[in-house]
């Protein structure tokens, strides 16, 4: 046998299991963990501008923020999204022929993935890379609370004014989709890492995940509402 006869296995196939593990892991840590942190910071809005700005300042002052942001948020998120997209493309959804609860949950996990990804792209271009979609208000560096409130309630993009109810509904949908994807993701994570060994443990753990999802949704709505009530 010469070396040329050895079939070359594509890189993606050679590292298949590792990549699947990393896809599963990045969804929880750091992406899911960041979602919780993000809600934590944003819910400061409930207490008004002073509190919110203090917390944002604390984050802005973190050492090596650039590395933290790219290494622990953007890159893992991009990997999770791109690899997840590749996985999702290979499936044949069939919840209409087999309308069981878990089949729907599976389908929703994919639908919310697409919603969350679209939402996140707009959200990032609006607030993090605000010079792209944020509108003129972001040109002047000012009070973070005021900026966020402007972005949610008086968003101008490319000379078009977006009514507050549209922006807010967009945020409610995006947030709910992200939370569903995360909460259901905890459940599938626990199965694929061998923690839940059978249907009984899966049953009670699904209620834990449901509770996590409800709490996180409400938490997020409160944060949004904080920006509405504090003028």
């Amino acid at each position, binding site marked *: 046998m010469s070396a040329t006869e050895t079939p070359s296995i594509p890189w993606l196939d050679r590292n298949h299991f590792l990549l699947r593990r990393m896809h599963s892991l990045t969804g929880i840590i750091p992406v899911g963990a960041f979602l919780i942190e993000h809600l934590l910071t944003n819910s400061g809005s409930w207490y008004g501008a002073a509190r919110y700005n203090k917390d944002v300042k604390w984050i802005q002052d973190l050492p090596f923020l650039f590395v933290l942001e790219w290494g622990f948020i953007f890159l893992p998120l991009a990997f999770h999204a791109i690899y997840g997209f590749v996985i999702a493309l*290979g499936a044949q959804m069939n919840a209409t022929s087999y309308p069981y609860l878990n089949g729907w949950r599976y389908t929703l996990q994919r639908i919310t993935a697409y919603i969350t990804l679209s939402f996140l792209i707009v959200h990032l271009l609006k607030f993090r890379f605000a010079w792209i979609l944020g509108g003129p208000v972001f040109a002047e560096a000012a009070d973070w609370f005021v900026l966020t409130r402007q972005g949610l309630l008086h968003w101008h993009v490319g000379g078009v004014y977006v009514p507050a109810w549209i922006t807010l509904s967009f945020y409610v949908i995006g947030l709910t989709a992200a939370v569903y994807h995360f909460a259901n993701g905890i459940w599938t994570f626990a199965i694929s890492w061998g923690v839940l060994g059978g249907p009984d443990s899966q049953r009670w753990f699904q209620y834990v995940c449901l509770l996590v999802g409800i709490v996180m949704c409400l938490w997020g709505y409160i944060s949004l509402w904080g920006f509405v009530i504090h003028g």
Partner: protein
Amino acid sequence: MPEYVTVRVKRQDGLDSPSYWETFRIAYQPRMNVTTCLQQIALNPVTLEGRKTTPVAYDAACLEEVCGSCTMNINGSVRQACSTLVEALRKENPNEITLEPMTKYPVMRDLAVDRSRMFRDLKRIKAWIPVDGYYDLGPGPRISPKLQHQLYPYSRCMTCGCCTEACPQYTKDNRFIGAFAISLTVLFNSHPTGAVLKEDRLKELMEPGGISECGQAQNCLRVCPKSVPNVTGIAQGYRQVTAQWFKNLFSR
């Protein structure tokens, strides 16, 4: 009691030929099942419009839901023709019965499909207990009644393919081995003699097309005619694979 049964069949003349529909009307007999309908069609292959046609090709062997060969899509959901009673189908749709071949395997002709992919995957995961030898190996190890009780449900698998047909992750163009193969991995890994091949099997489960292809839609549990505990099988498979993965990471 109805006089007739109307059966609409999705037909296909050969491997790559286009499919077409034909409708038949046959006399109703009490307690008839879908295989009986197909036998009646074969006796007199004339369509509803009165056109003479060829008998519908289908697979069948045991006629008692233990071989799995007659698996097809009946009224859009996958099950065995021999154990599906027309009377029960009338509750789903009193007017007609639709028969379609399975969609995840190449259609050989009409309702007969080629499921050799399942057999290849069984070989891939070494779904057997290695007891071949040219001398007497003596009695096998004892298996506790508790373990027997746990494993018996897995052994009911008849490789019919219902779990793969209903699985959104199992498609014609991917390599997923499907729920049945994962459940059988757990069955043979849990057998004291079968466990000799445990690492080989888990290695296969970690390859492309292995267990990580599962998306937890869990339709495999709902559609299994033999009530194989596929959800437990996959959960246990994941547990074994995770343990093996950590072992591989840290023990060298």
